[in-house]
């Protein structure tokens, strides 16, 4: 096998597929990238057996062949070459030779036929979604996913489709983010909740960050595949039962205390108060009274912060504690100028939405102080 390519053309897809490669591997071949060359196309793939990432790029006059090479090394070499450099790649004497200008590299290789893939896990049924829509679903919910929780089904993002409505839900058991969108096209079928693992979600966000074409989403019993613009990501799904989140999203009619205020001002006030909150528990006390929201924080050194925010408020006086980071995360994910917060009492959840109900809801449980 043999091909010649310009540095930038190779580096971008290399860096993309590198996301799937784990630093510590159980199988040596999983720290390699698979390169498949045909006359006019180069396909790069990497996997950790949970997530598989594939990128395709056009070649002019390549000589066909498949091989795997150490992912980090080839990426580092490629990155370190001068811009605009032309790279000649070939397999010679059981090694991969890389030549560019006056540089020569010989990398170890492993046979391509041993490289695992996640083919066959994904069913043919798929649907198309605008890249921006899927990106928005992820951006506005993924921060609420759990991290290395023993409840493994929380370490991911729930996706479900009913009719044309696609919904994403993430929760770590303390707060929850829910966002939905209307699909334009009719393709595909309804599916019940599937849980995409954390790593798959993070890499999917990277995939969606660049490009402008629509993406195709295929969902099977064991995996999800998203493809578009010459790149493709396949992620196994978490086999577990997501908790019944519909029970914990309070209906607005349940909430007798409603406030709305300037989102950015509130976020900034909370961020300032957070500085003097207990570093471990991040607790702040919110006091709602009349048209004023007071935010109080203190730490073990007895330092104190107090912020006042003007609000429009219906309801009785209320004092309630929260982990300030959860509030800031939710406010940071909402784009609108005005935000609404609906509360019941000091021990029930708080519902946070943008004033122009845009299909995203955030639920935060309080803290008992």
């Amino acid at each position, binding site marked *: 096998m043999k091909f010649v390519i310009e540095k930038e053309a190779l580096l971008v897809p290399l860096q993309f597929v590198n996301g799937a490669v784990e630093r510590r591997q159980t199988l040596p071949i999983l720290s390699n990238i698979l390169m498949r060359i045909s006359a006019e196309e180069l396909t790069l793939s990497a996997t950790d057996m949970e997530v598989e990432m594939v990128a395709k790029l056009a070649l002019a006059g390549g000589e066909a062949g498949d091989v795997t090479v150490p992912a980090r090394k080839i990426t580092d070499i490629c990155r370190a070459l001068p811009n605009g450099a032309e790279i000649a790649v070939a397999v010679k004497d059981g090694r991969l030779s890389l030549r560019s200008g006056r540089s020569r590299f010989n990398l170890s290789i492993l046979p391509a036929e041993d490289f695992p893939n996640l083919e066959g896990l994904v069913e043919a049924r798929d649907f198309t979604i605008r890249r921006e829509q899927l990106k928005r679903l992820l951006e506005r919910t993924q921060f609420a996913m759990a991290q290395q929780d023993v409840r493994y089904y929380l370490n991911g993002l729930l996706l479900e489709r009913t009719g044309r409505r696609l919904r994403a839900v993430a929760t770590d058991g*303390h707060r929850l983010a829910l966002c939905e969108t209307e699909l334009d096209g009719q393709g595909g079928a309804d599916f019940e909740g599937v849980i995409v693992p954390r790593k798959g979600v993070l890499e999917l966000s990277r995939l969606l960050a660049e490009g402008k074409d629509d993406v195709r989403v295929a969902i099977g019993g064991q995996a999800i595949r998203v493809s578009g613009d010459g790149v493709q990501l396949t992620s196994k799904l978490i086999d577990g039962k997501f*908790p019944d989140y519909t029970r914990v999203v309070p209906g607005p009619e349940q909430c007798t205390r409603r406030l709305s205020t300037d989102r950015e001002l509130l976020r900034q006030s909370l961020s300032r108060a957070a500085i003097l909150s*207990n570093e471990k*528990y991040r607790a702040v006390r919110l006091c709602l009274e009349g048209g004023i929201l007071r935010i109080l924080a203190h730490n073990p050194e007895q330092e104190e912060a107090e912020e006042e925010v003007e609000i429009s408020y219906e309801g009785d006086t209320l004092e309630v*504690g929260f982990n300030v980071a959860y509030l800031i995360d939710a406010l940071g994910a909402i784009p609108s100028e005005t935000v609404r917060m609906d509360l019941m009492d000091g021990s029930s959840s708080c519902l946070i939405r943008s004033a122009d109900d845009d299909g995203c809801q955030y*639920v935060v*449980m309080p*803290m*008992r*102080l």
Partner: protein
Amino acid sequence: MILHVDMDAFYASVEVRDRPELAAKPVIVGGRPGSRGVVAAANYVARRFGVHSAMPSATALKLCPEAVILPVRMAYYAEVSRAIRAIFRTFTPVVEPLSLDEAFLDCSASECLFGSSADIGRRIKRTIRDELDLVASVGVAPNKFLAKLASDLDKPDGFVVVQPEGVRAFLDPLPVERLWGVGRVASTRLARLGIRTVGQLRDASSDVLEALFGRAGSHLRELSRGIDHRAVVPDHLAKSISHETTFATDIADREILRARLLELTEQVARRLRRLGLEARTVQVKLRRSDFQTITRAHTLSSPTDMTQEIWQIADQLLRTGLVRGPGPLRLIGVGVSGLEEPAPRQQTLFEDESRARGRRLDAAVDDINGRFGKRALRRAAELKH
């Protein structure tokens, strides 16, 4: 100066107080002889017949057939105990209760208000008699160890003051068995060396003691000199909470050991909750028939005050402890340390149902036992004998 106040034959005295017609009779508070009951307390009339606490009721009745046996009314004694502690607290806030019927008090800071510690001791004794019609023995001494010895010296109705300059004269003639940690085995070993009194022990060479008792040897030497640096720690400032029990006869049956340990765990957890604290470390202490003591501890990732969670660890530690030292035990104990104020508690969206139930159970048990006595409602597993 430290005070040790010890109520004389507490449970029995409370019963006799309420039924003066029993005053001249031998009175035993405890379980019925038929149901393998044991003596919880005996008044001094009964003690003259050789009856003592922890003795099977059947044996006690053989020694003293005319004894009146009364059931244990723990809730009532607890109520009386609270009244006694309330009297203590009018003199000093530094009160460390050891059980319902005894406590250490540090009155050093109260002397300018109420006179010398000895005066305070006398006033406490008088107030308990006047207000509650009960008799306390009081020891006043420079430290806890000596105060406890002093309160015991002239029981019942004792009042003994040991001044700092009188420590030697006080200790030297006492038999070595009066020292904490010197039981049957240790006193026999000492007797072989001709050491029978504390004075003789004080003069013994440290090498000999070390060879005989290891690290405990230097502790014994300190005690023989009347040295004890432990402070009086009020309950709410405690660094650890523990309960232990010495069995009347050694127990090898694992299920019975578990039952007793569960009972102690419940007591420890309840005290923890009453103080509004949570603990990080659980420790189990086992003492074998040959006095070898085994302790096992485990530290949790997040502190707890739940009986269920402390018990899970204690049960596990008992198992590993018994692997190390199988065979009958004479003592079992459980303690918690690493106490902290409960952290702000993040509420959860999806309640862990077993945890939530555990919390509700603890609250209900505490509530019921607070009203009807600490053994009113118990876990069935504690009932194994």
